[in-house]
């Protein structure tokens, strides 16, 4: 085991997969010689060569399309889209092509492409470097959608995604690259070495898709969340002395409905939290499932925490970000006696 931040854990996953499987190739803007703007691919081109780790033109649609073509020819491409905010030029190739190649060809062709992309705010990125568009992709049939909340899961999930024969969009909450973040920007940054999930196996291991992690066991209320909000919600509940059960979904598609519903049946209360905007967000899907499956177990209306339905503003980052105050209000509402 070694201390790793999320970048190092992702780098380790790609290093291991490049070493284990000659069909794995990495591609993306600035990822080769330079090692990526967030350094996730640092040293990998030097180690595996320019034919395995490719710098690409600034053309996300071209990157995704080329990755699809490569995958049809037996490679297993891991494409980096530098920011999730830049993924839209590749949207058609993801939604109309990548997601449906197995389906439309009745299994004759399939495209094992993994798209890695940093998402989320809290880094002063403004409206073009802070978005959380995962819900747009969960709405598309045929692609898996994953978002880790810590280095250990990031590595194991990425290995699983690269080995998966289905396409995956792998969102990396960039505010968590260097340390867990509890939503309070005024506090000094905390490194991953202080967190148990910063202890990462240096070898090969997998974390399964479709299996949520119970980040904290609790009895009072279930918080269903993922990514950065796992840490924000944990901190908010702790500050309230609430015995909250924090469920880190890890993969949104496939979704671990059983873990969510078992927990809600136990606690009788549920808060859903994500950084993405509220309206038509992925949280609405969770709410709907919990309502359908657990209605008679609920003691209070389900609460939802999300980003405001505005573009992500540069100057009002912390008024926008769903920090502890917003989570606390939701927890208070859900805990109110009937």
């Amino acid at each position, binding site marked *: 085991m070694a201390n790793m931040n999320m970048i190092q854990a992702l780098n380790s996953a790609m290093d291991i997969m490049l070493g284990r499987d000659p069909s794995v190739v990495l591609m993306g803007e600035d990822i080769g010689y330079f090692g990526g703007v967030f350094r996730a691919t640092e040293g990998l081109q030097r180690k595996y060569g320019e034919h395995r780790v490719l710098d690409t033109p600034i053309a996300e649609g*071209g990157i995704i*399309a080329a990755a699809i073509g490569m995958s049809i020819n037996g*490679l297993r491409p891991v494409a980096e889209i530098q920011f999730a905010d830049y993924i839209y030029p590749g949207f058609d190739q993801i939604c109309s092509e990548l997601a449906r190649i197995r389906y439309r060809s009745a299994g004759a062709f399939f495209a094992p492409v993994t798209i890695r992309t940093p998402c989320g705010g809290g880094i002063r990125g403004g409206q073009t470097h802070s978005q959380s568009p995962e819900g747009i992709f969960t709405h598309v*049939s045929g692609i898996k959608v994953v978002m880790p909340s810590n280095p250990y899961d990031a590595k194991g999930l990425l290995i699983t995604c690269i080995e998966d024969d289905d396409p995956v969009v792998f969102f990396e909450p960039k505010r968590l690259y260097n340390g867990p973040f509890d939503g309070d920007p005024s506090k000094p940054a905390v490194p991953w070495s202080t967190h148990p999930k910063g202890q990462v196996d240096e070898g090969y291991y997998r974390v399964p898709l479709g299996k949520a992690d119970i980040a904290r066991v609790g009895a009072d209320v279930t918080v269903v969340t993922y990514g950065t909000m796992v840490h924000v919600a944990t901190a908010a509940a702790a500050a309230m002395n609430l015995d909250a059960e924090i469920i880190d979904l890890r993969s949104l598609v496939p979704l671990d409905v059983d873990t969510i519903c078992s927990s809600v049946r136990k606690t009788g209360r549920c808060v859903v939290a994500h950084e993405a905007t509220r309206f038509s967000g992925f949280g609405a899907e969770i709410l709907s499932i919990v309502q359908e499956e657990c209605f008679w177990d609920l003691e209070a209306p389900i609460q939802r925490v999300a980003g405001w339905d505005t573009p992500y503003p540069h100057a009002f980052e912390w008024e926008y970000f769903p920090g502890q105050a917003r989570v606390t209000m939701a927890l208070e509402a859900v805990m109110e006696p009937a």
Partner: protein
Amino acid sequence: MNKHSRLHLPRSPARPGEAPDFSYVQLSPAGAVARPDVNARARDIGSLSLDLVRVLDDDGNAVGPWHPHLDPAELQIGLRHMLLTRLFDDRMQRNQRAGKISFYIRSLGEEAVSVAQCMALRPGDMLFPSYRNQGLQIVRGIALVDLMCQLLSNTRDMCKGRQLPVMYHTKPGNIFSISGNLATQFPQAVGWAMAAAIKGEDHLAASWIGEGSSAEADFHHALLFASVYQAPVILNVVNNQWAISTFQGYAGGEQRSFAARGPGYGIAGIRVDGNDFLAVHAVTQWAAERARTGAGPTLIELVTYRAAAHSTSDDPARYRAKDDHKHWPLGDPILRLKQHLIRQGEWSEARHQALTAELEALVVSSWKQAAAFGTMSEGPKLDADLMFEDVFKDMPASLLKQRALMRAETGKSGASSAEET
């Protein structure tokens, strides 16, 4: 009306009620265009993208440096494939009109594009077609019955009922699944070719796009990636002059040829008479040799004419001059190859009639076989359970649940379903 507008609005040379006018088509005499070495640098052969490579002259003689000197037997095979493509198209069009299939797209007048190009490639080369490339399927030996079962979405449909008619694929035949969305296959072909180079294999990829959809960003991504990585790929723009009702001027064809997009990206661009089987074959072979020897990608513009409607869903009488294809200056690809072979003493009207009758019979008997696997109105039906398969490799719990709901909704037990495990 603003008579002094600086806004240029491309105008079709002939709309309904007007006389066909193809004076805008830039032609070169047969045999007039030089054939550069296959290793020539794109920057040194820019004129190829403006000229028009032609081998067959108006009398059916093969002339000039691009004459591929193909064996007459091979030309006869080419003629057979083109004729079969046309007869197949003709019958499927009529079947659609008779309500037997929901939709069809003919390649009338463009048969040489797919047939000659596919014959110039190797079986291991991967093809990324558009929806008007049925000749590729014919040349690669896909049985008409298999194509027809796809058109019928019947129990032997290769797509299991998930795709519109004509969106074929064949994994063993190395023809990729046709999307139905335009242009997306173009940059995918480049990625496939990049992988071939990464793996050190000498196969190449070829893709086809209409001149209309060359307006999509995917076209430009394809050219950019092909240029940057010098990918072993042949990118073909089938300029059949029309995108449904929209004249090629709206794809930017008035100011510069489509082939000339190539040199802009540092890619060899070459313009060829798309209705001249020999020229199409020769140019494709030249491009293939470039790709295989590491001389890089080639953009080929095949100048042809969409003699039929876009699909069974539009009526060209509403947007273009009547019978305009009869005035197309590059003629008909089947008639031209036939004329050439007759002139060579390698074909005759009698043999042509006999071949036509043989192929018509093949189409008819194939349709009977295909219909036995089910049609829209009668015979066996695909199991609706199939809609839930292949979304992912393994069916997730959410889809298992929805499949059960669908079964309940349709009153189906599902117990006899073949894929039930």
